[in-house]
């Protein structure tokens, strides 16, 4: 029987779900492999009570999200976190760099608590066990398909642990650091084939800090190449606030 799949979204920009719809060439094949029982973005209807796979996009930002996740975990055999918001807390978690109260005041003025139940943004992992991770802001459709294939086959999670520089070299890019431009590739999780550096833009770290990253050495490298060492930690915050950057 085809696995019953739900697509759930927490706090995000829906970009990863848009990427799911952007698999135009493979979409019908993929839909043929599963029983897509709930996808709010694309279909009317409500979350069913039973399903096998939950694909979750977005960071946890409310108590409602926490409850929802616990419920999902109790029902789904496999939980798949897609996108950096879900995997590291991503940009929603950037809100953590200051108290939520001050943020309310800046945006809504007068300290009106417009959204009761708002909590400090966090990755899904911090609330429930996650079986599969597909990082990226947004996810890369090919990487998602590879991940989905692993889910369907019941294989292990396979998030790359390496840093970006190797793939950057494979793409034969000149290194930004050599011209004193901050690039986060040397501590960022690989897997996108160094897309940004290959398009002339330094890595902004959207896949999160790699678990094997050597942040201390990266700081020294920044200094040696004329980049402000403090900019390493500050730039990393954009996607890693919830990951406690200690660079």
């Amino acid at each position, binding site marked *: 029987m085809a696995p019953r799949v739900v697509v759930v979204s927490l706090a995000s920009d829906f970009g990863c779900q848009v990427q799911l719809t952007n698999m135009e060439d493979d979409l019908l094949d993929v839909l043929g492999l599963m029983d897509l029982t709930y996808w709010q973005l694309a279909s009317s209807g409500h979350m069913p009570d039973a399903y096998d796979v939950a694909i979750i996009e977005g960071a946890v930002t409310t108590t409602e999200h926490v409850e929802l996740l616990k419920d999902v975990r109790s029902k789904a055999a496999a939980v798949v976190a897609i996108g950096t918001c879900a995997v590291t807390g991503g940009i929603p978690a950037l809100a953590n760099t200051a108290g939520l109260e001050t943020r309310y005041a800046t945006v809504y003025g007068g300290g009106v608590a417009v959204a009761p139940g708002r909590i400090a943004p966090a990755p899904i992992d911090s609330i429930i066990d996650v079986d599969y991770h597909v990082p990226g802001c947004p996810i890369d459709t090919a990487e998602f398909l590879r991940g989905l294939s692993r889910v369907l086959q*019941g*294989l*292990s999670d396979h998030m790359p642990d390496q840093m970006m520089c190797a793939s950057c070299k494979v793409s034969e890019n000149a290194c930004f650091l050599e011209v004193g431009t901050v690039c986060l590739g040397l501590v960022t999780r690989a897997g996108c084939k160094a897309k940004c550096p290959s398009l002339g833009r330094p890595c902004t770290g959207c896949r999160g800090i790699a678990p094997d990253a050597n942040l201390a050495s990266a700081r020294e490298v920044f200094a040696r190449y004329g980049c402000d060492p403090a900019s390493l930690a500050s730039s990393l915050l954009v996607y890693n606030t919830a990951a406690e950057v200690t660079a």
Partner: protein
Amino acid sequence: MDTIMRGTHVSGAVPESTVNPYRPWPARITSIMDLTPQEKLFELRLIDSDAREAFDFSAGQFVELSVFGVGEAPISISSAPSKQGFIELCVRNAGDVTGALHRKQCGDIVGLRGPFGRGFPFEEMKGHDVLLVAGGLGIAPLKSLINHIHDDRHDFGKVTILYGAKKPDEVLFRYQFDMWQHRDDFDLMLTVDQPDDTWEGEVGLVTRLFDKIDVDPENTYGAICGPPVMYKYVIAEMRKKAMDVDRIYVSFERRMKCGIGKCGHCGVGHQYACVDGPVFNYWEAMNLQEAI
């Protein structure tokens, strides 16, 4: 004038006979036996009869087992070379490939490449006593050697087998050992770390068993396979018994992606476990950095 490599052969400038060493041969699972909750014994038969006949190995060698869509894993051959037409693999469900294999049924087809690597020096061991020490799953390659010795039993002197497992229900090939334990041409001793109510045998690490055996140092070959931590201690015991360093053989497990000395993953010191090993004699191993 383009040269296109076709099928398993390379045409044009390249000699016809070149087979693609990465291409697995289809093999049918002819029997599956549950050994423990984590290990199963698979009997496989290469479907192509030429490949089957050409498949000639020695105890200690391994194959690359392939489940397409999942990947490959190096697995020691557990059956004796004297058993023709079939090979046995004793496989622990340790991850993706081994897990996928565990989900297969009798009659299913998997892929095999090999045999690869250097096995135990069977011919050289002939005429001598043999002391085999296995820990856990390390019994898998040693079983091939034991079975081979069994088939040529008169060529060997005393054969002693020491085998340690964590728990009684993790003892592999119990059915065979039960049989051997009652034979006088094999000295078989089993021990477990964590006994349960049913266990009547020895308790403790496999090294404990050394107190109970006599070794003729001038005339004994040793063979060891087990988890990486085990080697140092077992070798120390063998050295205490004054066995020669170059008559002790060890088999190493390392990560492998090709099995044929190219992918680089299985480096042990300056050697590769896949082509220079997995069986090394201890003198060689002593000269390999990070080996033991």
